[in-house]
Structures are given as C-alpha cells and as structure tokens.
C-alpha cells in the first residue's frame, strides 16, 4: 500500500493554475518546468497541420500556372472567372456533401445518377403530371430523401461496404431514369419543361443572380463589358455560387462547431468507440446519405432551371468528381478527418483547371491526365499532413 501512496506525480509537472494563461498551449515561451521534450511548434507548422493547407497551396499553384500560360487574360476576366466559378459551384455543392459522408466513413457513388434521376422527376412531374414547378422540385427532394434513407439503411443494417451498396444504386437510379423517361416520352430527354410552368420566383431561386443591380450599374459606368443593349455580359453572381458558398459555410459550421459535427468525425474515426460512448452512429450515417442525395437534387434543380430541360445522362461521373474534390480538399478517404473549406478549394481547382485548359487552347484530352496527377499529388500531400497532425513523420 505504501508504495502506491508515494508521491507518484513527477515533479516537473506544473500546477494546473500555471497553465491558465496558456490557452491553446501553442505559445513558444512555456512555463518553467514544462516538459522539455516538447519542441515548440511554429506558426507555419501549426498552419500546415490544417487539413485544408494542401488544397490551398494547390489552388495557389494552379492559379499561378494558368496566369503564366496564354489565355490567362480571358480566363481571369470577369466572364471567364464567373464561368469557372459556376463550374466549381456545381461540383462543390455535391462535393461538400460527399466530404461529410466520407468523413463519417462512407461513400455515396449514386450521387451522379441521383442528379440525372432528380432532373427526370422534375421534368416528368411538371410536364406530364402538370404539377407546378415548385411541386415538381418538392417531389424530386422527396425522392432524394427516400433514396438517401434507403441507401443509408442498407449500409447500416447489413454493414456491407457503402461502396458496393451505392454502386448498385448508381445503376438502379440511372436505369430508372432512362427506362421511365423513355417509357413516358419515347426519348431520353425532356425538353421545354419551363415553358408550360411560369414560376419566376422558384426559377430565380435556382437560376437567378444576386447583385444584378450592382452589375448593371457597373456596366452603365463602363467598368464591365456590356452587350449592345447595355446589359452586362455578367448579369450578377449566379445563384449556384450562392448556394455553394452558403452550403459550404453551413456544413463547415455544423462540422466544426456542433455536436452533430463531432459525431460525424467520431463515426468515421472509430465506429465502435463512438458507439460505445453513445454516439448514434447509424443516425449520423443515414442522415448524411440523405444529405448527399439532396445535394445531388439541388444540383439537378439548378441544371434543369438553367437548361430548361432534363436529360437522363446528366450527372454522369459526378460521383467521382465529388470524391476527387473532397480528396484534393484534404478529406481522408478512410474517414475521420477533413474540412469542407478544403473541399471548397478542391472544387475551385477542378473548375479552374477545366476552364483553364479550355482557354489556354491546350487539347482538352489532357485534362484527364492533369486530373490524375492532381489526385495523386493530393493523396500524397494528405497522407503527409495526417501524419503531421498526429505529430509523427516529417520530423521537425
């Protein structure tokens, strides 16, 4: 007994009070007697440990590379920028959702097919059932919630890899899109959806612009290019970008600031440990499957409003682009780690490269080669950053 009650605390541990001023423990001047084996970490290292650091660096490099190539003036003009931002936004909307799901330890490969299917639901309900536009969109979201729920439920109950479960959904949804559309319309496209359904409010919500007045005024001042009738080429900031930034901010808040966000990290970090402390891991996963399906439906709605038509092949390969943007953004494929701000950068890199290659006149065949290299680099950087985060590898 006596041996146990000896003073076991090493004398070099400071009293709790002395730590109070040292809120985050990252200051370099440490209280005397602190653990001398702990090397102080500089601000740069602190910053590099952030999961979005790799993506931010990658984005910066991409911006610089395209600035040095021919066609930069067009790419970085207001019009060019708005084009690649819109591309990034459309990808970013689904990539953010995919990222949350990957952080929770699961994949949803049915996102791309869901984009096509949701478009078909809007098209058929509006054009053939005569529903108002908002009604068709509501139907599409209802279908998305059901699809996400079923995907999640199967994954959670069977404990099969979500990769295989949602691969099945990928084919089922795509097949349903084509099958139903062809059975009803005899074709694989549903054109002129908006013609019989005037609903400017709903349309503006997904396909409008904000700051239109400001852009119009800038046009009248001659600051931005206008058409002959005085309307600027860029009428405002497209709603897709607003949705993208809004959802990213919301997802970022939820992930880092709320209880539910903590549960997302825990579910992907260690499923059993999370379950043992009472995290409702099944509910977390199912809700995120619903979110990815709804994000796909939002993208589908934006595309339908923009084009005025639905196409059964919409969203093809989008599931992979979403996963790629998430990985470039610093999300660990194995789950438990990542940020949505990194995914924002990932989506930006994606949009920028796609438009950059177009504007520089490089053969677009090379886009995929470039993409492959970026993915590989992203994964290597992610791996390095994760080891850094755990304080291992890379040394000082």
């Amino acid at each position, binding site marked *: 007994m006596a041996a146990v009650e000896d003073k076991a605390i090493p004398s070099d541990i400071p009293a709790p009070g002395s730590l109070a001023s040292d809120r985050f423990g990252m200051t370099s001047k440490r209280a005397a007697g602190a653990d001398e084996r702990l090397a102080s970490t500089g601000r740069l290292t602190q910053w590099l440990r952030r999961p979005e650091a790799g993506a931010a660096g990658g984005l910066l490099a991409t911006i610089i590379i395209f600035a040095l190539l021919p066609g930069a003036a067009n790419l970085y003009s207001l019009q060019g920028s708005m084009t690649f931002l819109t591309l990034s936004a459309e990808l970013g909307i689904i990539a953010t959702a995919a990222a949350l799901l990957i952080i929770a330890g699961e994949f949803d490969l049915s996102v791309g097919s869901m984009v096509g299917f949701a478009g078909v639901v809007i098209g058929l309900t509006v054009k053939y059932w005569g529903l108002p536009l908002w009604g068709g969109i509501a139907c599409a979201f209802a279908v998305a919630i059901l699809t996400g729920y079923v995907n999640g439920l199967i994954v959670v109950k069977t404990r099969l890899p979500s990769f295989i479960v949602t691969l099945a959904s990928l084919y089922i949804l795509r097949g349903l899109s084509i099958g139903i559309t062809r059975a009803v319309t005899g074709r694989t496209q549903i054109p002129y959806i908006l013609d019989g359904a005037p609903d400017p409010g709903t349309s503006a919500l997904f396909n409008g612009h904000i700051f239109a007045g400001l852009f119009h005024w800038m046009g009248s001042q001659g600051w931005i290019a206008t058409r002959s009738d005085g309307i600027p080429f860029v009428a405002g900031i497209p709603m897709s970008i607003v949705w993208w930034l809004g959802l990213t901010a919301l997802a970022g808040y939820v992930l880092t600031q709320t209880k*539910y966000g903590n549960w997302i990290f825990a579910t992907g970090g260690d499923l059993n440990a999370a379950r043992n402390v009472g995290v409702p891991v099944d509910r977390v996963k199912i809700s995120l499957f619903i979110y990815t399906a709804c994000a796909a439906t939002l993208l589908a709605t934006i595309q339908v409003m923009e084009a005025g038509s639905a196409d059964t092949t919409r969203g093809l390969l989008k599931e992979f682009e979403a996963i790629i943007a998430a990985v470039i953004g610093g999300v660990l494929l194995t789950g438990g780690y990542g940020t949505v701000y990194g995914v924002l950068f990932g989506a930006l890199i994606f949009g920028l490269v796609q438009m950059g290659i177009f504007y520089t006149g490089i053969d677009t065949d090379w886009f995929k080669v470039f993409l492959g290299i970026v993915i590989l680099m992203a994964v290597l950087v992610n791996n390095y950053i994760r080891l850094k985060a755990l304080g291992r590898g890379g040394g000082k």
Partner: protein
Amino acid sequence: MSQSAQTIHPAMELRGVSVSFGSVRALQDIDIKVYPGEVHCLLGDNGAGKSTLIKVLSGVHRPTKGEILVDGKPVVFRSPRDAQDLGVATVFQDLGMISLMSITRNFFLGREPTRSSLPFSRIDKEGANNIARQAMADIGIDVRDPTQAVGTLSGGERQSVAIARAVHFGARVLILDEPTSALGVHQAAMVLKFIIEARMRGLAVIFISHNIHHAYPVGDTFTLLNRGRNRGTYAKSDISRDEVISIMSGGEDLKAVEAEIAGLLAQIGNRSPAIAS
C-alpha cells in the same frame, strides 16, 4: 451476506448472469456485488470470461439470463449509453479514443456541452477545453493543449484522458479493464493512486489486471473467474498475496505444468552427457 444485514446496497450487482454466444457459454451463473468505496479486482486467465463480464457490466452485451442491479434496482442496459447514464463508466482496454480527434472532442464525445438545446447549437469549446484540462489536472496530468489530437499522446496520457472522462461524467461505478498493462512504472503508479482516490470518493471500482503488484495493493475484494464461472469472492483479509498469485497464475494448472517441466528437465539432464560426448 443476506441483504438485510447490509446497511447499504451494492452500487452494482449481478444475479445469476449467464451469457451465451451460440453454443458457447461465455459466462454461467455469475453473482457479483460491488459496493461503494470498494475496489473489486477481477482475476482470471485468458478465456476465463473477464472481457465478457466487463461487456455485460458496461452494457455492450446483454445477459442471456439473470439480472443486473444498480443501487439495488434491476436495470436493463440496451446500449453502453444506458449504462453511462446510470453512472456505470467503463475504460475499455482499447480506451475507446479516436486518435484523429482532439483531447477535448474525445473527452466530451456523446455529451458535448452546448449553449442551447437547439439541434445545431454551438459547442461551448472554450468551456469544454477548460473543463477537460481541469479534469486532467485533477488526476495529475498536465495537458499541454486540449486541442491536440489524441493520437499524439503517449499510452499513459491516453489512459489518463479515458479515466478522467469516465470519472468526470459522474461515474458511480468505474470499470477499468487492464488500465496499467501498457504503462511504465511511474504512470502505472499514478493510475493506481487514482484508483484509491476514486475509492475514497465513494466510487465502486471494478479493476481488471494481470499484474499482482498492481491488483493486490489497491484491491479490497478479489473475485476469481475460471471458464466462465465465479470460483469465489474473497476479502483481502481472507486471502494472501501468494494465494492471489497462485490463483492468477493458474493455481493447480500451474502445478501440473511445473511437474511436466521438471520431468522434461530431468530427461534432458539424463541425456546431456550423451550430447556432451
């Protein structure tokens, strides 16, 4: 040991608990009482049923037969969360820590302190950091930075976080599964000191250990498990350290093994001149 003779209820009690997995009977007819302010050591070889028993106590497994009582009232644990809500906190051998998450996030996982009860209300991070650091300081651990990932901590530090977490959330029964097995001398001593402190605060502690030098000094009561059965519960005054050692190292089995080894050695001894020549 009749119920009326006791002025206090056991903090936790198992009555006739059996657990089967298919045709395997992992536990049979286990009766155990753990009182507040008592350190109850569970002893037994590998496969004796210690792990299964811990999982029953912590709500991971439900008993096939028998009942669990907390403070004299029968309870049913549908999940580990139910057990925790009744003050039964378990530090599993793997610690249940998520290494890519921060100390604070791990500490409060599943019980995050929010500023309001709205579904997406903000976690009070600063408050959480302070509480986590204070809870760690209370058991003598200097947390450099509660926002650092648990993966960066040493085994002993992780153990401390897990114990501090279990105690902070109002545990009445603290179950520690091999808490000292991965630790150095200093850190193990600290954990033992902490067990005694927990006992003095009136907690019931269930302590599983293979190390007699850790178990005997802090234990008040010793229960021996063998092949899924309770082979007896002894107060410290009724059992000597050597007897505990004998039980823990296999007792009769060990004597048989010793005899066998002696026989083998004798054979080798007989042969050795032949090898030498």
